[in-house]
């Protein structure tokens, strides 16, 4: 009978489905995967390095079963969002931030302190890291972050531009400047028409504070005096840097205009010597630009190299979900164990020492150059006012760059503004 047949078949189907569901539910693997939490992770890796982070997160999820919901937000917006979201208990489980952001987020209660017992239990030890990066995770004696990598400056030398300017040896290799005099001489030789000899910064070189800070540190100056109570930008060493900042555009006429896109100019073969961040070099390779990476030249007293380490942090939660916190720790541990992959693919030198001797890393000429600068690394000062002081600095140094304001008046005004910053 057709009815009977149908009923029997439906019963068999239902029995089969029930058995299947039970088997799935009882499967230990399935049970384990369901128990793994999903964690939220915010970072500002909006460039080519973001895709590499995606790959590594996929790899991490395959290895551990922990899923990550990632939000990539432009750094400046990420910091504003953290400041809003965390007090509303809407912050992520894990956030990657720059070292200089730690003091103000820590003092505002946005970040969770990490107990020494927790970091050591997870296998994070000071001796495994380069000291400056490990120290960068501390604020007022408490640890708030574990470092990942060390974005830093280096000198990009455009081979074609150098050859066209007659600045290559008989072997075709470009000459590499190491001092201020050499930089100025070569840059003057390169600059012609719409081709420029020298620039610091990716876009808007006039207001590139990271480059300005690099020069300050090379001259022994800094934004704040050692006690953080007043600005050090009124000192003669800072003034000397500001004068150089204005001179490259107005006196030597070797640098592109204040709002130029130096990265595009370098790719287009219109810029010869370019001090910029290490995050640019994978993009230059993709664009098939013939370039050589060299250490940042010593333009002032000492060969200091600007760095801005990325740090893993736990934004504060009203009630910590232990499973999610463990999962976040697991990711930080996993990334630290696989950081050589990050270095090789994203071009960011590890804050951990171990990958520095990895033969794949040392075989890469650019990474080798970056590692060679390790002894000269310096980062921003650990004060909550650092970021606000940096924001104030931008228009002031741009005015100097375009010759709108004399260096002395600009620095004195900047120091006054920084000293007036509210607590």
């Amino acid at each position, binding site marked *: 009978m057709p009815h009977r047949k149908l009923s029997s078949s439906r019963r068999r189907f239902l029995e089969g489905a029930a058995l299947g569901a039970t088997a799935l539910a009882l499967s230990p693997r399935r049970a384990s995967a369901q128990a793994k939490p999903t964690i939220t992770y915010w970072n500002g890796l909006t460039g080519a390095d973001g895709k590499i982070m995606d790959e590594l997160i996929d790899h991490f999820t395959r290895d551990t079963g922990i899923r990550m919901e990632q939000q990539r937000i432009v750094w*400046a917006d990420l910091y*504003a969002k953290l*400041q*809003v979201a*965390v*007090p509303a208990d809407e912050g992520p489980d894990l956030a990657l931030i720059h070292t200089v952001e730690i003091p*103000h987020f820590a003092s*505002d*209660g*946005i970040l969770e302190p990490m107990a020494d017992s927790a970091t050591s239990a997870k296998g994070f030890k000071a001796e495994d890291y380069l000291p400056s990066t490990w120290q960068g995770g501390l604020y007022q004696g408490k640890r708030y972050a574990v470092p990942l990598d060390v974005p830093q400056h280096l000198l990009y030398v455009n081979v074609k531009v150098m050859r066209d300017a007659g600045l290559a040896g008989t072997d075709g290799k470009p000459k590499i400047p190491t001092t201020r005099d050499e930089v100025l001489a070569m840059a003057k030789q390169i600059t012609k*028409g*719409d081709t*420029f000899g020298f620039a610091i910064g990716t876009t*808007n070189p*006039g*207001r590139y504070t990271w480059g300005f800070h690099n020069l300050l540190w090379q001259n022994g100056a800094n934004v704040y005096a050692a006690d953080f109570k007043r600005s050090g930008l009124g000192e003669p060493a800072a003034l000397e840097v500001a004068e150089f900042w204005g001179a490259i555009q107005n006196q030597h006429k070797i640098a*592109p*205009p*204040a*709002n*130029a*896109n130096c990265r*595009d*100019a370098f790719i*287009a073969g*219109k*810029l010869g010597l370019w001090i910029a961040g290490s995050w640019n070099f994978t993009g230059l390779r993709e664009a098939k630009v013939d370039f050589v990476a060299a250490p940042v030249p010593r333009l002032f007293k000492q060969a200091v190299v600007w760095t801005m380490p990325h740090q893993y942090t736990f934004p504060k939660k009203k009630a910590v979900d232990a499973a999610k916190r463990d999962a976040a720790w697991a990711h930080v541990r996993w990334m630290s164990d696989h950081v050589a992959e990050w270095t090789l693919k994203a071009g960011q030198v590890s804050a951990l020492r171990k990958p520095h001797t990895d033969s794949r890393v040392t075989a890469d000429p650019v990474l080798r150059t970056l590692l060679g600068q390790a002894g000269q690394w310096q980062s921003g000062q650990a004060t909550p006012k650092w*970021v*606000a002081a940096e*924001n*104030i600095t*931008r*228009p*002031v140094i*741009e*005015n100097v760059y*375009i010759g*709108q*304001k004399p260096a002395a008046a600009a620095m004195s005004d900047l120091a006054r503004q920084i000293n007036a*910053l*509210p607590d």
Partner: protein
Amino acid sequence: MKPRRARRRGAFTPYLFLAPGLVLFAVFRVYPLLEGLWLSFTNARLGRAQHAFVGSANYVRLLDDTRFHVSLVNTAYYTIASTVPILAVPLVLAVALNRGVALRTFLRGAFFFPFTLSVVTVGLTWLWLLDPVIGPSTYYLRAAGVPVRSWLADPSTAMWAIILTTVWWVTGYYLVIYLAGLQDIPRELYEAAAIDGAGGWRSFWSITLPLLRPVFLFVLVTHVIGSFQIFGQVFVLTNGGPGDATRTVVQHLYETAFQNFFHFGSASAMAWVLFVVILAFSLLQFRLLRGHTQY
């Protein structure tokens, strides 16, 4: 005669229909406005739960904030300098298109197209066009032997570059409004004027312009309000630079609230000062352009 109860119910009916809109308006407009007013008298900082009443301290601080003063002057400069091209360029184009030129529909769409783009897209496009090293404008000007300058890095030209970008962006929008106004003017008026011997210019001056007065008022008021709140173009094109040459009030406010210490109290005070300025200008414009022309 309707019973009193029924009449009362009838009187409530319109408010019932208005209620959803009014509730949304109260929650998302009035409440934030009043909350902002309260914050302007406190030392509120984004992310901090506690804040204290500080009286007029935030307003007093604005008197010493030289960058706020520069921002106000720049905003006023932008508003005044951009008003004439914003009023004139779309009007000229609308009058031309209203005369039935060839490809009228295509041209109307072409002029309107930029307005469909987001401010970031517009800004990035013009940033590239005006790039001092690799931008097309630099290339062609140099090829034509014209001295090249960095429009956005020169304090004397940066604001004009922003105005140019804005005019290119919003012309299509105002053009459509002008066209609607022009099509509202009865044809008989032009015919009568022609019979009386009036030429094209005379008709434009004596018929078109006076009858477009309500449209002018709308364009002027919306443009001035929008100009005082200019942010997107400046943020993308110059970030307030060179130096502070194009820094505007909203950018200063944004940086105070979201970049420099998250000082919501100070930023709210700036917002209220801006509100009062915009209100004063809007009332002034309504007063100056009130009245109605009829034939």
